[in-house]
């Protein structure tokens, strides 16, 4: 080996180790071309997004030209197939909003609690068990959730109706009210000194327990007497959508909670705070923006979901009376697009075809804007926590 290196001449060195000018130029050009190709391919998602916007807007514009935007957003008379078609989509927008709010009520408290539990409370071995559960919930296709909602949950709601609701309400409300009474009686007791404190605490706890028990009993009676006419309604869709949105909420807010540094936790514990106090007073405020981003992403999941609402919401284009009546069937934007396009696509060019694109455009804008907001929040929080 050594001998051969010694035999190298200057020319050899230039040829083999240093590149000639020509080779260098070649290489540089090659790298430039490679980079150009790479950038072109990497921009595919940019191009895809532009294409989506272009083609949705292209077919949505004729609707706004033909019908105007006023009726679309303010009237709730939805008769697209009549001779004199009416395209009032207000009830449909309200329907989308209703199920989304319902899904958020189901998913957010549960999701954030579960995320706190995963990151700070459960031991590592338990986390390894819970993670796959969340992944499975996320992996189940939406049509399967829809099938469950339609075939299993809807008949159950219709038959058991109020009974099911009151059991569900008890499961959720009893633990919460026990904790609530504990906190409230303690806070009231803390205003007194000495022997009075204990007495005040006990009596206030007893009084509140009685009041809450009566309230729960009345609520239970009220729910138990409810008759659910149709199992496919806003409540059904909201609950199932909430469960579908759970994995998103859990994983994004868990990331946010994990990003809060050890120092904050250790500082809080060193000051004598319990774990619950650390989580509620230190971790959640620090991870606030990440949790908000998680909520936004969950909302997006719920607004954009098609199959579950199509199968489980009843598809009636009416505003429920009163508006928070979750037991009435409703109709959402996504379900309208999915359901009406089948009848509209052979008459391409009709108002009925273009109104669905107008709805898709609204969905697209909502999704795009909320995504931008959530990304902005996440980026800002990362910068704050990082520096």
């Amino acid at each position, binding site marked *: 080996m050594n001998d051969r290196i010694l035999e190298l001449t200057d020319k050899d060195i230039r040829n083999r180790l240093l590149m000639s000018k020509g080779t260098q130029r070649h290489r540089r050009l090659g790298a430039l071309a490679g980079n150009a190709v790479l950038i072109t391919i990497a921009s595919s998602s*940019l191009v895809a997004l532009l294409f989506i916007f272009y083609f949705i807007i292209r*077919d949505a514009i004729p609707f706004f030209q033909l019908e105007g935007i006023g009726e679309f957003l303010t009237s709730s008379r939805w008769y697209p197939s009549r001779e004199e078609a009416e395209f009032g989509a207000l009830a449909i927008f309200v329907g989308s909003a209703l199920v989304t709010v319902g899904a958020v009520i189901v998913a957010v408290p549960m999701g954030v609690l579960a995320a706190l*539990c995963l990151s700070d409370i459960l031991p590592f071995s338990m986390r390894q068990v819970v993670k796959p559960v969340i992944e499975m919930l996320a992996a189940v*296709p939406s049509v399967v959730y829809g099938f469950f909602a339609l075939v299993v949950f809807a008949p159950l709601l219709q038959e058991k109706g109020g009974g099911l609701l009151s059991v569900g309400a008890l499961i959720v409300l009893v633990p919460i009210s026990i*904790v609530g009474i504990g906190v409230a009686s303690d806070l009231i007791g803390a205003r007194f000194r000495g022997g009075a404190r204990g007495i005040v605490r006990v009596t206030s706890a007893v009084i509140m327990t009685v009041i809450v028990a009566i309230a729960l009993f009345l609520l239970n009676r009220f729910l138990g007497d409810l008759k659910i006419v149709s199992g496919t309604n806003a409540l059904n869709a909201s609950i199932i959508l909430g469960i579908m949105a759970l994995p998103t909420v859990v994983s994004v807010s868990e990331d946010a909670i994990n990003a809060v540094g050890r120092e904050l936790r250790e500082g809080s514990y060193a000051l004598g705070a319990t774990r619950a106090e650390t*989580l509620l007073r230190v971790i959640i405020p620090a991870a606030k923006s990440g949790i908000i981003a998680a909520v936004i992403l969950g909302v997006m999941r719920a607004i954009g*979901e098609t199959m579950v609402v199509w199968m489980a919401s009843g598809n009636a284009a009416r505003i429920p009376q009163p508006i928070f009546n979750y037991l009435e069937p409703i109709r959402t934007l996504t379900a309208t697009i999915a359901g009406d396009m089948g009848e509209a696509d052979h008459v391409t060019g009709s108002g009925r075809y273009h109104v669905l694109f107008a709805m898709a455009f609204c969905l697209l804008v909502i999704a795009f804007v909320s995504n931008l907001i959530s990304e902005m929040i996440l980026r800002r929080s990362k910068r704050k926590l990082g520096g």
Partner: protein
Amino acid sequence: MELKTRKMLDRSFTTIGIFAILLMAVSLVILLQPIIWRGAGAFIFRETIENRKLNLEIFGRGNRANVEVQVTEAEAARKPVYDMMAEFEREMEEGGPSFRRQYRSEYSELRDMISELLGPFPGEGDPVLIRDRYGHTRWDRANVKLHRILFVEEYDYSDPNRMGVKVEKPRADLFESTSIEPLFGYLEENLERMMLPSVTFYWRFLFDRSYDAHFFGGIWPEMLGTFYLALGAMLFAVPLGIVTAMYLAEYAGEGRFVSLLRTCISSLAGVPSIVFGLFGLAFFINTMKIANGKSVLAGSLTLAFLVLPTVIRASEEAILAVPRTYKEASMSLGAGKWHTIISVILPAALPGILTSIIISLGRAAGETAPIIFTAAVSVGRPLAIWQTLSQPSPALSWNIYNLATEHEAVDEIRHVQYGMVLTLVAMVLLLNLAAIIIRARISRKLRG
């Protein structure tokens, strides 16, 4: 607050948190339990003699001699039923117009139901539809039918303040003291002898095509359609996704263009799936006209757009997870950037990229909304691979929706619906399980 209360609060907070996680696990169990239990019913069930007859005549399966012996046996058991009905028909003939008027509609309803339960009456020709040529092929459905024959459902509206209450009245009461009354008792006691149920394992459910709008047969065309759609989507999305991920992870800095790209990727991930469907309709079908109407190709392309962000993100994560030392070692040996990526980084990131591909595959297989307008039809034959360029196909996800909501006899074919749901869920969850296992291996390897 007192220390005692604070501790109690701490404990109750922990309990509520664990309760939330339990609730999540329980909802997964509640979701999967009926799907697994009733989905298994599509594969393992008690078949009646009618099913064996159908298998022999339509698919050519089973032992002809055995089936014929059983058919004669069952016919012997059914003979009294037909005799009683013939007897009653004679009684109606002789009974005069008022008697006839009283029983005509009830009797024709009963006759129809019995023919649905046991198949066409002896001596009648073969009906056109396969479903009319045989009685109930499943013992559980036969029992449901028997119950409908034995009892009439009526609604009791006597209390004006409440909704009608369902009441069941024995049908035998309608035919009191006629010659057909004993028929009901006979049916109830001898149904087993007339149908000869036995347990069967119908594994061919996965590989048979469906007959007579999913009344009989299996789900092969749907499975094949799902395979084509999902694999086709990966064919387009994976190369694009990996190259993009490579660019983002290895080449791009923190410039404005890159941050624009990242925003686009996350926005693309947030676009509702139904909007992808409309886009596919407007672009691939109405503008590009890549086929005459819907086609598997159009559906695959639409799905490719949908899974692209997932592939990019997961692949980028996999590439970033490769330790920097690998790259530095390769560079210090004199390899160029390109060479390093191809021969060092990509092989090391391959298991992670594979995980991302598997997960996206599951996502593409389960999506419904993007294929409604671009690729899916309700009924179709299994396609050969070149037909996917121009023809639409049924797919599991779409057909679950379609059979559960738009089929003419939704209740009759529940087992097919559950079978499809189970197949789809099993496919997706197995893919995810594979991904989880691969990921666990990688993390073990990277750790030491």
